[in-house]
């Protein structure tokens, strides 16, 4: 009788098997398209557009230049759902009617198991670009690490970000600021939840030091001082609702990327030291960021803006940055050796890359929203180029009935939407739209989040995939 052990086969999904698993996960009724632009106090409903998922390739990891393409948005939406099955969300108005069923669906063993099965492959897809973007080399010591940390100037006041400039120079500053606050909702309304994944288990004094940071984030058990509660008040003061994922359809690709990054590090404990690095840099830079955020919101909304969420962080994160460095990083290096330093540096640098992607994505989206009327005007010359045969592009002919809502998405190249008959409300962001009648249309910019709803009995329209609309103008 043989006692030879079975060969260990690591778990891995790819190709058609992976695609099928993603579609199976996202076909859950709670992930289907919404008939409204917003979810209504139902934290379990997340529009994953499962009808598109069979057509995506989850094996070809995109580089940074393609990280805002639709496949990435789709993957980030799926990952948000997968990660958040570990968190507890309850609707403000109670688990009534359909919400009770949705609650059971979202936290069901099936939803969790299907999500966990696809998570490693989707994480590779979502964060694989960081392997090319960030590379650590050389032998790091405590001394060289501290010299590096000092060189980052994380505590120093930074220049105004692209995001701040976009909001303050927007044609509709309140709309831009609301769109900005919406981007924070996935993170701030469940603040510190990814971080808590790192204080489970038992690993010595640094665990308790990290727990102190969490105690601050959770407001010492006084609900009104819990940071997520402070952010609810900020949202409400800006005229927004504060229920979980109400504005799911308005989350930008990079906002989900940023939030998911911390879940990714927290969920995979082999990346523990990367999280420590990212934690330090986040906390250290948040002091200046929050000071500027409070200033931007007050400038836009005046005194009605409740900015306590941000002013609280201006204070407490001075401590958290120091605590992360002196109470977490330094003791961890002391206990576990200098070979952990490259992972800590990598966490810092990866976060900086994501921050840059996010800053640029948001500023570009605000420009896209502000220039809605201009993109509508561009329809005429681009349509003329197509009609004359000067430009030929793949075309999709679409007929939709009244009330049909194309849940938000983006395209990997510029497109022209041309209305043949009927009326479409074309939505380019929160509270941002153009009405398109027969013979009209709009250029849809590459990677820009948008959706549409039909406002006539029927609407016949075409989508021309022109690739680069500027080439149609020459």
């Amino acid at each position, binding site marked *: 009788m043989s006692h030879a052990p079975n060969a260990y086969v690591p778990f891995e999904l790819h190709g058609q098997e992976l695609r099928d698993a993603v579609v199976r996960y996202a076909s859950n009724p709670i992930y289907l398209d919404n008939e409204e632009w917003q979810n209504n106090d139902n934290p379990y409903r997340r529009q994953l557009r499962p009808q598109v998922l069979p057509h995506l390739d989850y094996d070809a990891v995109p580089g940074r230049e393609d990280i805002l393409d639709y496949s990435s948005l789709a993957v980030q939406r799926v990952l948000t759902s997968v990660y958040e099955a570990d968190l507890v969300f309850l609707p403000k108005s109670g688990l009534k009617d359909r919400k009770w069923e949705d609650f059971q669906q979202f936290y069901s063993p099936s939803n969790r198991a299907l999500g966990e099965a696809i998570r490693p492959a989707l994480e590779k897809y979502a964060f694989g670009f960081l392997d090319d973007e960030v590379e650590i080399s050389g032998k790091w010591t405590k001394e*060289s690490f501290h010299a590096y940390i000092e060189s980052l100037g994380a505590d120093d006041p930074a220049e105004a970000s692209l995001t701040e400039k976009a909001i303050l120079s927007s044609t509709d500053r309140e709309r831009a600021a609301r769109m900005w606050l919406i981007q924070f909702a996935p993170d701030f309304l469940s603040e510190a939840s990814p971080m808590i994944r790192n204080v489970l288990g038992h690993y010595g004094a640094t665990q308790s030091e990290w727990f102190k940071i969490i105690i601050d984030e959770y407001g010492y058990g006084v609900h009104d001082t819990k940071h997520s509660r402070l952010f609810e008040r900020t949202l409400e003061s800006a005229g927004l609702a504060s229920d979980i994922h109400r504005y799911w359809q308005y989350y930008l690709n990079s906002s989900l990327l940023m939030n998911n990054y911390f879940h990714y590090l927290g969920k995979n404990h082999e990346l523990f030291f990367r999280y420590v690095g990212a934690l330090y840099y986040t906390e250290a830079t948040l002091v200046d960021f929050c000071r500027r955020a409070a200033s931007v919101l007050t400038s836009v909304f005046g005194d009605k803006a409740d900015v306590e969420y941000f002013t609280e962080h201006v204070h407490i994160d001075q401590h958290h940055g120091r605590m992360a460095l002196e109470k977490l990083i330094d003791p961890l290096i002391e206990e576990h050796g200098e070979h952990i330093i490259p992972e800590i540096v990598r966490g810092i640098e990866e976060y900086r890359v994501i921050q840059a992607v996010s800053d640029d994505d948001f500023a570009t989206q605000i420009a896209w929203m502000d220039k809605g009327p201009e993109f509508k005007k561009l329809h005429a010359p681009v349509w003329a180029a197509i009609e004359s045969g000067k430009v030929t592009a793949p075309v999709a002919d679409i007929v939709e009935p009244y009330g049909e809502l194309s849940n938000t998405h983006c395209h990997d190249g510029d497109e022209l939407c041309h209305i043949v008959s009927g009326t479409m409300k074309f939505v380019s962001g929160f509270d941002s739209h153009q009405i398109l009648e027969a013979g009209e249309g709009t250029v849809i910019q590459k990677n820009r989040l948008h959706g549409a709803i039909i406002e006539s009995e029927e609407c016949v329209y075409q989508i021309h995939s022109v690739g680069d609309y500027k080439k149609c103008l020459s």
Partner: protein
Amino acid sequence: MLVLTFAATGRGNCVEVDGTPYVYVRTASGSFVMRADCPHRGGPLHLAAEGPEGKSLICPWHERRTATVRMRQRIPAVRTGRTVRAVLPHPPQAEVSHQHRPLSPALAC
């Protein structure tokens, strides 16, 4: 220690500190920051060929070999996108200039 940032490739890919040049290289066995001058007679190590099995760099002047395993360890650095941040063994007040140095095919994989 002196922490400097410079380009990973192209213009400004070399930082010279108190007369010692450093470049970021990509070899078949990994990327790292190294001195661009040969420790033997100061030859242009940034134009080095690769030795057998990629274990050394061969200076074009006197064909002196330098083991890459040691070179890879010497300078702690991080490349993010096209920018390198390196921690160099020089005092903070050292004289610094940025230049361009071409790299041999073995160092620009």
